[in-house]
């Protein structure tokens, strides 16, 4: 059976990968099981909680709702791709500094949603932060520390190590 599955090429965190899996397999499962990138978490599995958020060609998507065939040829960024050369992304540093992470299940999705927001809007208002993260649920921190983490990351001068 597996011989009949198409080879699907995806660039993940700037590295070209190829998988041979059922085309309806969820991108989430391909990332976690086939590519061993377990930073991306599954929460609800139905597009409500945002835990599985990744970037697909720059857009924010729920990887639980993407059949992997639809990711063919795309560029995926996961939480593992935020860090550069051993230096955490400013958002990751801010989440640590502000107590924006607790149990950690929602954190990768929060970071990806926040990175998507800040790429488009480097200095968002609190209302814009709330909307940008409205699709990401947290059961621990009560959201305020997460919002404060994004504010803190947005207030930092852009470090040269993360110039894109």
């Amino acid at each position, binding site marked *: *059976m597996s011989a009949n599955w198409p080879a699907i090429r995806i660039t993940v965190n700037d590295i070209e990968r190829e998988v041979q*899996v*059922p*085309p*309806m*397999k*969820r991108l989430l*499962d391909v990332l976690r099981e086939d590519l061993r990138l377990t930073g991306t978490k599954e929460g609800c*599995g*139905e*597009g*409500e909680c*945002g835990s599985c*958020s990744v970037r*697909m060609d720059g*857009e*924010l*998507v*729920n990887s*639980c*709702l*993407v*059949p992997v*065939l*639809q990711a*063919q040829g795309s560029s995926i960024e996961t939480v593992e791709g935020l860090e550069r050369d051993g230096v955490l992304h400013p958002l990751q540093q801010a989440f640590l500094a502000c107590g924006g992470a607790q149990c950690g299940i929602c954190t990768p999705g929060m970071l990806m*949603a926040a990175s*998507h*927001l800040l790429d488009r809007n480097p200095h968002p208002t609190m209302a814009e932060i709330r*909307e*940008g993260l*409205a*699709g*990401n649920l947290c059961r621990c921190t009560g959201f305020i520390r997460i919002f404060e983490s994004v504010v803190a990351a947005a207030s930092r001068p852009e470090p040269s190590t993360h110039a894109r």
Partner: protein
Amino acid sequence: MRGDAEAHEFVAPGTLTAVLELLAGAPGEWTPIAGGTELMVAHAAGRLPASKLVNLWGIPGLRFIETTPESIAIGAGTTFTDIRGHAAIASDLPLLRRAAAWIGSIANQSRATLGGNLVNGSPAADSSPALLVYDAVVELISVRGRRRIPYSDFHTGYKKNVLASDELLYALHVPRRFSAHRQYLRKVGTRRAMAISKVALGATALVEDGFVRELRLAAASLAAFPARLYRTEDALCGKSIDTGSKRAARAALLAEVLPIDDIRSTAEYRRRVAANLLDEFLTELQAPEVTR
């Protein structure tokens, strides 16, 4: 029971022509899937009945927004993120832009397509009331050719529509002649983010010299499919908005809508809120127009 990826055949012919030929060759066998925000939820839960799926995501020629002086054409594969970001839609179809902004989350809007929202045909579909009150026309396509019908004739029952088994929704054509109309759209859900409508009401009205010259009202979650409220419109057309006409309109709406009890709300709540939304819109019409 988890969905089984191996239980589904999923092909990507890559072009619109190839997809249409596949559908024509085996009518009714293939289920098109675009952004997956509906079908993948069913898939994850093991509730996706379709065994054969054909990909529409990324097909060239389905994701476009084209403007002419008279109308805006929106390809069925256009995402709600695309709609939110388009200048002509923001200026000429503000209700559609607003509806796009309250669909799910950013991550849902980047994948969910206008065509998917309409073909899925939920009674609560977010984009439907706006399209109905803007007199949108749907363009359908198959190997046999293309045809256009008013969007108000597209839905025929609960999750049923006029699409033939070899047809795809190709585009929406929305006229740009509503800028002089007073416009209204409000969705009532459990919370602001991510909530599916309990009730939504949209309206466009042309008021001249205090009289309603043209009026379109449309609702979601008040019947088996999103629909215009023609009898309520009739109760108001040609009238001035006053206590008497508002009362008559409320009675017409309550007689016309057919909401149900379900997991999101009750029929009685929906009726009351729908009547209140209508009243809110009519009260806005009574006030002098303010620049928005």
